C-alpha cells in the first residue's frame, strides 16, 4: 500500500507547524522522516492518523484521496501508528488494550477476549515478540510495551505503520532489535514511516529519507548521505558533530557518594547502594535507560529526595541531610531534567528566573527589599554571556524556545560560585545548535577545574563528554568504565548485561 501527502498544511495560531508538505511513501519501504524537535514531524503524523485535522492538503492511499476525520478512519484505511508516548492504558492487560475500540462481546455484552489473546500469541510468535496477552501493561518494560503497540497495529491490518520516535525510550540493544524487526515487517509487505532525529538509525534502516525543517520539506537525501550532510540539512547550516575536548588531569575528589539508597513514598528502593566519586576537573557521565534511578540519584544529591540513607560528601562536608538551599549554596549547580517544570517558572520574567536562587542576597536584595533595576541589569549581562536569543529580559520565560530556556537555566546555575555541576539530561529536546553550546559550556566548566556529573540517556552525549562513565541499571551502578568503552559494550551494560572484560 502506498501513502501520499499533498500540500498538507497545519497551523496552531501564528505557528505554521506543517507548511505544504508533500510526501510519498511507497509500497514496502521504510521511509525515514528526519527533523529536529519541533520541526513538525509529529504534527504531520498526527494529521495522517486523524488526531489533528489539516488546514489544507490531501491524503491519498493507493492513489485515491481519503478523508481522515479520526483515528478510526485511519485504521480503516490501513494506517497504524505507534506513538512516541505509548497509547496504552497502564492498568489494563495487553489483551484489553488491544481489543479496546474493537471489542467483541457475547450476547450479554460481556467481553470475549479469547480470540484476541490467540491472535496476540500468534503475531507475537511470528515476530518473536515474547508478549503475554494476560500481563498488565504497567508491569512491562517499555521495549515490550512498544511491541504491544506494534502487535495492535498488525492485528488491525495496518499496511502502513507510522513509528513516531520509536527509539527514544529504548536501550541500544532494543533499538537494534526494533530496527531488525522493521526490516522484517517491510519484507513482509508493510510500509513503515519512521520518524526520528537520530542520524545513525536513519542510515541503518531507511530506504528513503525526507528531511523536514521548520514545517517544510527541505530535501530527500539518498541513504548514502553522510551524517554531516544529514545534520546540516536538518539544522540549515554546517554543524560540527564532534565535540573537542582537551586532555586534563583530574584533581582531588570533590563529590563522594557512599552507599546511597533512595526510596519513594511507597517504599520502593529506586537507587540501590550507589557509591562513586567525582574529581575536580572531571566529567563523570551516568548512562542508563530512562527510569533506572538516575533522576532520583540526581535529585538526592541536591537534597530533593526525602527518603534517603547513605552519605553524600561535598568537598569534605557531609551534606546528606542538608536542605536544598544549603546544598546549592555549599557549591552545587543543578540543571534539572525537566526544565519546563523544575528549571524555570514559566510565568516569571527571564530576569526573575535568572535570580531564583539568589534573589535574597546582595546585590539583588538589600534587607527585605529587592532591586528590580539591578536584577534587570545583571540579567542583560548573563543573557549576553550565554547567548540567549530573546526580545527582552522582561518577557516571560514561557516565550523562549527550548534551547534558550536551557541556556537561562545554565546561566543562573553557573553564575554562583560552584564546585560541582549536576546536569540531568542537559540536552534533551534541544536543537543541534543549542546542544553544541551546552556541550561546550559543560566542557569549559570542567576545564576550569569543576567537578561535573551529568546524567544522560543519549549514548552519543555520554561518549562525547565523559571522562569516565557510570552505567545505571535498575537503581544500581552496575559498571564504572573508561570513556573509550565501545557503544556496543555500553549498550549491553545499559540493558543489564556485563560484556566480557568490563566487570569492575
Amino acid at each position, binding site marked *: 500500500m502506498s501513502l501520499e501527502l499533498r500540500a498538507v498544511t497545519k497551523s496552531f495560531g501564528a505557528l505554521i507547524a506543517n507548511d505544504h508538505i508533500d510526501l510519498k511513501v511507497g509500497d514496502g519501504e521504510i521511509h525515514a522522516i528526519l527533523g529536529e524537535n519541533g520541526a513538525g514531524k*509529529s504534527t504531520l503524523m*498526527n494529521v495522517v*492518523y486523524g*488526531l*489533528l*485535522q489539516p488546514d489544507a492538503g490531501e491524503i491519498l492511499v493507493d492513489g485515491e484521496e481519503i478523508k481522515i476525520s*479520526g*483515528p*478510526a478512519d485511519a*485504521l480503516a484505511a490501513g494506517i497504524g*501508528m505507534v*506513538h512516541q*508516548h*505509548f*497509547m*496504552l*492504558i*497502564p*492498568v*489494563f492487560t495487553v489483551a*484489553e488494550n488491544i*481489543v*479496546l*475500540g*474493537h*471489542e467483541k*462481546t457475547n450476547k450479554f*455484552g*460481556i*467481553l470475549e477476549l479469547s480470540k484476541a489473546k490467540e491472535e496476540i500469541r500468534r503475531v507475537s510468535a511470528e515476530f518473536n515478540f515474547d508478549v503475554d496477552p494476560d500481563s498488565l501493561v*504497567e*508491569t512491562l*518494560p*517499555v521495549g515490550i510495551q512498544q511491541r504491544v503497540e506494534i502487535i495492535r497495529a498488525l492485528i488491525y491490518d495496518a499496511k502502513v505503520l507510522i513509528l513516531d520516535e520509536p527509539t527514544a525510550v529504548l536501550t541500544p540493544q532494543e533499538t537494534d532489535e526494533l530496527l531488525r524487526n522493521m526490516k522484517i515487517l517491510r519484507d513482509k509487505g508493510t510500509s513503515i514511516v519512521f520518524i526520528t532525529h537520530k542520524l545513525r538509525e536513519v542510515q541503518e534502516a531507511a530506504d528513503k529519507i525526507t528531511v523536514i525543517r521548520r514545517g517544510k520539506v527541505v530535501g530527500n537525501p539518498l541513504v548514502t548521505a553522510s551524517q554531516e550532510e544529514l545534520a546540516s540539512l536538518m539544522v540549515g547550516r554546517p554543524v560540527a558533530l564532534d565535540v573537542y575536548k582537551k586532555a586534563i588531569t583530574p584533581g582531588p575528589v570533590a563529590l563522594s557518594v557512599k552507599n546511597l539508597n533512595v*526510596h519513594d*513514598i*511507597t*517504599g*520502593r*528502593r*529506586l537507587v540501590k547502594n550507589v557509591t562513586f566519586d567525582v574529581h575536580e576537573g572531571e566529567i563523570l557521565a551516568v548512562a542508563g*535507560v530512562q*527510569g*533506572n*534511578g538516575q533522576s532520583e540519584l540526581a535529585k538526592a544529591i541536591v537534597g530533593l529526595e526525602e527518603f534517603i540513607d547513605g552519605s553524600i560528601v561535598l568537598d569534605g562536608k557531609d551534606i546528606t541531610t542538608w536542605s536544598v538551599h544549603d546544598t546549592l549554596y555549599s557549591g552545587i549547580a543543578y540543571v534539572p531534567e525537566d526544565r519546563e517544570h523544575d528549571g524555570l517558572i514559566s510565568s516569571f520574567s527571564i530576569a526573575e528566573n535568572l535570580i531564583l536562587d539568589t534573589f535574597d542576597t546582595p546585590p539583588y536584595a538589600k534587607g527585605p527589599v529587592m532591586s528590580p533595576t539591578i536584577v534587570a541589569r545583571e540579567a542583560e549581562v548573563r543573557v549576553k554571556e550565554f547567548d540567549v536569543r530573546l526580545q527582552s529580559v522582561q518577557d516571560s520565560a514561557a516565550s523562549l524556545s527550548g534551547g534558550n530556556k536551557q541556556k537561562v537555566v545554565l546561566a543562573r546555575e553557573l553564575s554562583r560560585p560552584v564546585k560541582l555541576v549536576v546536569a540531568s539530561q542537559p540536552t534533551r529536546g534541544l536543537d543541534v545548535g543549542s546542544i553544541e553550546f551546552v556541550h561546550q559550556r559543560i566542557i569549559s566548566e570542567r576545564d576550569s577545574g569543576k567537578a561535573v556529573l551529568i546524567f544522560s540517556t543519549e549514548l552519543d552525549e555520554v561518549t562525547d563528554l565523559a571522562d569516565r562513565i557510570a552505567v545505571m541499571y*535498575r*537503581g544500581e551502578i552496575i559498571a564504572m568504565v573508561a570513556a573509550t568503552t565501545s557503544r556496543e559494550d555500553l549498550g549491553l551494560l545499559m540493558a543489564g548485561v556485563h560484556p566480557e572484560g568490563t566487570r569492575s
Partner: protein
Amino acid sequence: MTQVEVLSLSAPERRRRRMVVMMGVLGVFALVAFFIIPKQHDKATFGFVMDKEWVAVHEWAINSRHGSLGFAILAILAAILAYFQFRARKTIRIASAIFGVSFLMSFLCWAASGKFIPLTGLLQGGLLLAVPLIYGAMAGVLCERSGVINIAIEGQLLAGAFASGVLASLTQKTWIGLLIAPFAGALIAYLLAVFAIKFAIDQVILGFVLNVLVIGLTDFLYKRLLIPYQTTWNSGPILSPIKIPVLWKIPILGPIFFDQTIIVYLMYAIVILIHVGLFRSKWGLRMRAAGEHPTAAESVGINVNRTRFRNVILAGAIAGLGGAYFTIGAVGPFGKEMTAGKGFIALAALIFGRWSPLGAVSAALIFGFADNLQGVLSIIGTAIPSEFMLMAPYVATIIAVTGFVGRVRAPAADGVPYKRGESV
C-alpha cells in the same frame, strides 16, 4: 517505567500493617473501656425477630460485663490472627470481619446493659440508611471512572428526592415518582456534563455550585409551593415493602434483605450490573479507558467526550433514583435539604471503596450502620451523650478515609478535561 524490585512493603501490605496495628489498639481499648472500667452487672438483651420469619433464636441475654469481656478477647484474637496472616503475606479480610463484629458486640454489650436491642432491626435500619449512599456511590463510580469528578451527587440526590416527592404527591402514584426521579438527577448531571466536558470548567467548583443551585431551588419551591399547598403538592404516598417469597423467611437475613421496597431491589440489580459491567463489558472497558488515558482511548477511535457525557448522565439518573428513597422510599413528603449531606458521605464511601463498586458498597454499609446505631442507641439511652453519637458516622468516615484507605489511586485522568488534539 522500569520495574523496580520491591524491597520493603508494598502499598497494600503497608495498609494491612496499619490495619493490624489499629485492630490491636482498638481490641485493647474495648477490653479497657467496656470491661475493666465499667462496673455494671445488668443483662444486655438482643432481639433477633422482627416479623413472622422462621425463627432460629428469639432473643439472647447476657451479663453485660461478661459479654464485653468475651467479645473484647475475641476481637484481640482476631487482631492476632490478622497479624499472622499479614506476616504470611495473605489478605486479612476474614480476620478483620471477625474483628469488626466482635468489637461492635463488645461495645453493644456494654452500651445495652440493662436494655434491649433489636439486632435485626438495627441491621435492617443500617441497610436502609445505606441505600442513598450506595446509589450516590454508584453514581460516583460511573462518573469518576470515566474521568469526571462528581461533587454534585448531593444535588442529584436532592433533585431526585424533590421531583419524586412532588410528582408522587400530584398524581398520588408512587410509580410516577419512581419514574421521574432518574430524570431529575440526570438533568443536574447534564449541567455537570455540559460545563465540565464541553466548557472544561473546574469540576470541583462546578459540582459545588450545582449543589448550591439545587439546594437553593428546592428550598425556594419548598417554601413557596410545597408548604402553602401541602395537600396537593407535598403529601405523596410511600412505597410499601415487598416480601420476596421464601427468601424473606430466612432467619435474621430474610427481613433485612428481602422485605424491602422496590428501590432497594433495584439497588441490588444496579450494583451487580455496574460491578460486572465495569470490569467485564465493552461499556466498562471504554469507560475506564476514558478515565485512565483519554488520549489513548481516542487514538483507537473511541469518542472520549461522548463516552464521558453518557456515563455522567447515566450516573445522574442513578443518583436521582437514589434520591427517590428519601421521599417515596421512606417518609413520603419532601423536606427542606432532606438529603443532609448524604451525597458527600457517598463520595467518601466511593473513595474509601477505592473507586470499585463492591468496595464502595461495603463502605456505604458501614457508614449506614454507624448512622443507624447512633439512632438506636440514642433512643434506648446510653452513657454516651447523644451529641457524640450524632458525630459517630462522620468520625467513622474520617477514620475510614484517613486511616484505612491510605494512598489510593484515583482513575488517572479523573477531573482532567479532554480536548481533542491538544494533548497529542
